[in-house]
């Protein structure tokens, strides 16, 4: 249970970090370490070198401008939880990050680390999918941008290539009202099932809806059919239940020691119904 041996570097700039990563295919960036270090302790990965990003102050800030909230990849979950900007502009992120692990983990764990790890049961992948965020990825040639919908390639797989670094996440400020629901065995555990719902209402009728499910597949899922169904309707309890039914009827979830596939599908419906109902109430408040 001790970490395997690795070389270590603590670059002072993103450029240096990318050069270090590009020079060694087996090197890995070390963000908060709240996932990578357990993986090392369990010897599920044995990188040749850890490139510690903790001195990269440029990746630790939250900035708001031009209708976008830009969150540096090294911003911690604790920072996101405390952020007044997020409560105003990204209430879904504020609501979801409360469910990420425990205080002592949130102190060090980062949004970039969570996204780069891409655990389908983690909250941050769901949040960036629901809010249609853009990932900013840097390599030696420069910068490229990847939409959240193209970023996740399945369990623990993302669009980040060898020698690249996720440096920021850009969230467009949404005019939807948001609600987040999650079921987990204990506070801080990974989600068994979670859902986010966003509604834009006009005189009580739904103009646009976004429904995202998490922890039911190898990546976050948008329920586009249910989103289309809601357009033009008043989101009553009955309509929310119908949308939940549409969102989950073809869901092929997975069973494991924590929950069966059938349980996940059933609870996913309940999460969608509750999230829609709460998002609709947010609007009238």
């Amino acid at each position, binding site marked *: *249970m*001790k*970490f*395997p*041996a*690795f*070389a*270590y*570097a*603590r*670059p002072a700039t993103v450029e240096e970090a990318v050069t*270090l990563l590009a020079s060694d295919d087996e090197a890995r960036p070390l963000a908060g*370490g*709240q996932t990578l*270090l*357990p993986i090392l*302790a*369990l010897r599920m990965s044995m990188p040749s*070198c*850890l490139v*510690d990003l*903790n001195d990269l102050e440029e990746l630790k800030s939250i900035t708001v401008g031009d209708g976008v909230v830009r969150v540096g990849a090294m911003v911690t979950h*604790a920072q996101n939880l405390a952020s007044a900007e997020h409560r105003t502009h990204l209430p879904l992120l504020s609501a979801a990050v409360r469910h990420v*692990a*425990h*205080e*002592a*983990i949130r*102190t*060090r764990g980062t949004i970039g680390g969570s996204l780069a790890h891409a655990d389908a049961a983690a909250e941050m992948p769901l949040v960036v999918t629901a809010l249609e965020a853009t990932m900013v990825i840097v390599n030696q040639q420069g910068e490229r941008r990847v939409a959240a919908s193209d970023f996740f390639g399945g369990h623990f797989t993302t669009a980040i290539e060898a020698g690249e670094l996720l440096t920021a996440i850009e969230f467009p400020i949404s005019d939807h009202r948001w609600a987040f629901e999650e079921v987990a065995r*204990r*506070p*801080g555990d990974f989600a068994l099932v979670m859902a986010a719902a966003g509604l834009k209402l006009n005189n009580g009728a739904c103009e646009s809806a976004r429904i995202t499910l998490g922890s039911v597949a190898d990546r976050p899922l948008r329920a586009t059919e249910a989103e289309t169904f809601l357009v033009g309707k008043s989101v009553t309890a009955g309509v929310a239940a119908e949308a939940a039914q549409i969102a989950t009827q073809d869901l092929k979830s997975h069973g494991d020691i924590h929950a069966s596939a059938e349980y996940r599908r059933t609870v996913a419906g309940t999460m969608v119904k509750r999230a829609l109902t709460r998002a609709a109430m947010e609007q009238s408040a």
Partner: protein
Amino acid sequence: MKRVAEDELIQVRTTVNGRSYTFSTEARVNLADALRYELGLLGTKVGCEHGVCGACTILVDGKSARACLMLGVQAEGRDISTIEGWATGKELNPLQESFRRHHALQCGFCTSGFLATATELLRENPTPTREEVRERISGNLCRCTGYETIVDAICDPEVAAFARGEQSA
């Protein structure tokens, strides 16, 4: 810092419980082991070694963190607080004394981690509800007490008075 080979020692300067330390360690050594074996501070316990049990929880720059999920070399320039720093001589601080009075420990292995978690919570809020305490300590495992007495100890009025005093100090 340039790339350092895996078997090379790295010098670390840090502050633990108000005292400056310099030690040398390989990058692979976690902070809990560095505290225990480089500095001889054995009060930080090593349980699961992958961030689940909370036994190694310490305060880094005033915030709780898992010492097993930090590298010893990441202590560079940090201000660390561990169980060795919380009593005055042989006199327990009021939170520690409350743990004793409420039988909030039996074997004691998890205690320093619980105290770190509770210390941080009480600094934010000297009078948390039982529900808030339960949520906050959900990241620390105790296999002896069943947690009730730990919640009792943290919610004790004498602890609240102490925490309020710390806050205004």
